[in-house]
């Protein structure tokens, strides 16, 4: 069975500080990977997607970047956090393209002060 793990579970960070969020998928090789952001009470906004190691496509940047250093790992980061970065960050995976179900991880809650 496939499992998806995100770390950390939650973070409180200062404006201007760096951030790194991680996501690992076990039990599935070469999945499509996605990062979503959800503002409190808001909709899900896709940030990045990746279909293979080393390749990441940006959908909406929001002064964030993403990398896929390994087949099963997806990293979201920034060098300088903004207040607007607060929210819920979700990693998701799917088998391949548009018709496949996306499976979401447990998420990371981020509060920027």
């Amino acid at each position: 069975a496939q499992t998806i793990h995100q770390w950390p579970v939650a973070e409180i960070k200062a404006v201007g500080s760096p951030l790194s969020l991680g996501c690992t998928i076990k039990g599935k090789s070469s999945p499509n990977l996605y990062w979503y952001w959800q503002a409190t009470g808001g909709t899900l906004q896709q940030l990045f997607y990746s279909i293979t190691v080393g390749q990441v496509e940006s959908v909406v940047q929001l002064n964030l970047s993403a990398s896929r250093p390994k087949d099963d790992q997806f990293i979201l980061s920034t060098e300088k956090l903004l207040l607007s970065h607060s929210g819920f960050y979700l990693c998701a995976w799917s088998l391949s393209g548009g018709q496949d179900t996306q499976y979401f991880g447990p998420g990371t809650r981020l509060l920027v002060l």
Partner: protein
Amino acid sequence: GDSVTQTEGLVTLTEGLPVMLNCTYQTIYSNPFLFWYVQHLNESPRLLLKSFTDNKRTEHQGFHATLHKSSSSFHLQKSSAQLSDSALYYCALSEDNYAQGLTFGLGTRVSVFP
């Protein structure tokens, strides 16, 4: 680009009554895939049901929806709401054979009361 429009805001209803959440979409592609995701409090979204076949009813866990390409709609219905149906519901769209992820609507919060 693609867009999804849902019933806005909060829907409150009494247990046992029917529920219908509207979803319409815009896309230039002829083979869209439509999804309903449900997110309970402090949980991650999970798939409720999906469809890509025109005019075919899709059912899961008492909910059903039919994709109507003629009206670009994918409304979610349930004949009898339960307390456990209280959650945030998202309609989402993706394109056939396209790796880019989902375009979500703003979400509809459903609160079911006894």
